């Protein structure tokens, strides 16, 4: 414990820098994945035949071991933060894509019929009915991805992308427990914190009429 404290005092500036790098890697990847997967999921919900093949393809990425995926990045894109973000984004696509697709398709068809019959355009139907009702499901996917990305960004150190993984691997190579912990504890705290934060955000964003749902649009 005492050793951990002295290590912390000695290298808190490095810790701060690595934490920032770690958050940067994760945040950019998750945001990119959202920007790609949510519109794609919406699009696929009206093109069901295409949906199957796209979702299958994207899910193949999910089966590649994370270290291997980072490895593939080196010949393709070299090393550093950019290939790391690329790999993390690829990994993050599937849960968001799938939840968006399922969420939008899960909206009760009677609501679509009502919306159409009342004179909503395709876009209005999406913004007024489908997205608000599917939001709970989509956000659950985003939360899963946020947690997964922060964890996985730890491995990005192997392709020199920085982040808290640097401290952990550094500690491992020196067989120095306090240094390992100096990286491992913050990354764990970060995951827990983000998870709680997003859980709260989801609760806060859930439309009131859906929060204690009985007759909601979801199955």
């Amino acid at each position, binding site marked *: 414990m005492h050793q951990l404290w002295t290590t912390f005092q000695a290298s808190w500036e490095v810790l701060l820098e690595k934490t920032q790098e770690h958050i940067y890697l994760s945040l950019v990847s998750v945001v990119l994945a959202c920007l790609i997967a949510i519109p794609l999921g919406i699009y696929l919900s009206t093109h069901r035949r295409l949906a199957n093949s796209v979702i299958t393809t994207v899910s193949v990425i999910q089966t590649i071991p994370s270290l291997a995926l980072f490895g593939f990045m080196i010949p393709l894109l070299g090393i550093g933060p950019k290939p790391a973000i690329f790999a993390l984004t690829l990994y993050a696509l599937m849960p968001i894509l799938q939840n968006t697709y399922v969420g939008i398709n899960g909206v*009760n068809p*009677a*609501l679509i*019929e*009502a*919306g*159409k*019959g*009342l*004179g*909503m*355009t395709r876009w*209005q139907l999406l913004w*007024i*009915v489908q997205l*608000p*009702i599917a939001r709970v499901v989509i956000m659950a996917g985003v939360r899963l991805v946020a947690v997964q990305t922060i964890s996985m960004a730890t491995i990005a150190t192997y392709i020199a992308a920085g982040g808290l993984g640097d401290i952990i691997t550094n500690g491992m190579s020196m067989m120095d427990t306090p240094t390992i912990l100096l990286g491992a504890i913050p990354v764990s705290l970060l995951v827990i914190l983000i998870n709680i934060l997003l859980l709260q955000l989801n609760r806060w964003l859930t*439309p*009131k*009429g*859906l929060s*204690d*749902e*009985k*007759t*909601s*649009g979801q199955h």
Partner: protein
Amino acid sequence: MSQAAVEFQQVTKNYGSGNVLENFNLVIPKEKIVTIIGPSGCGKTTLLKMINRLIEPEAGSVLLGQQDIGELNPVELRRSIGYVIQQIGLFPHMTVEQNISIVPRLKGEKKEHLVARTAELLQLIGLEPEQYRGRYPHELSGGQQQRIGVARALAANPSIILMDEPFSALDPISRVQLQKELIKLNEQVRKTIVFVTHDIDEALKIADIVVLLKGGQVIQQGSPKELLERPAHEFVREFLGQERFQLAYSI
């Protein structure tokens, strides 16, 4: 001169398994409750959904007033026609007020106007505005939900309202009550109501005019009394049921 609210002219609709409607003609008069009945597969829902272009005919035209609806923008058309469906279809994430005012909001009406309009409509369907406007659909009974469904259809003040088996998912007590309320309501608001149902009692009870269909053809169109007193075809007798005729004669 024309008292037709909706007119079908030589309409044909085909779902691939033969024609549901073939060279179909029908005049729906203004400001009446018109019920459409007939055995399942007779084309009654198809006919209803053609009026707001949720279904498009293969041939022929549907006129609204003098206007061929095929020439109108379907979105604009639907906003000018009320629509009530069997599954009610209230938006679960919106309050009663937001649900009722959805069509005027789609049309871009001002907010102050909407609040007053919602209150007026809630009053009309017998729900206390202050008590109900902020509630969510799942906090209401089935009967109350469908009252809101009717209010939503009335909100933009359409001259025509389409109702697709609106009361058939309700319990018998609410159903009878809503039928009565609909008759009273239309004495006040004077809309053309096209009402599809498979419940013969309901059809005869609420209708000014009954349209009986079979195999995509109109078998008889007239007041409930006319159908019972002067059935145009043996099928009328058969479909409405012998006991209703005995009842009608005994009165």
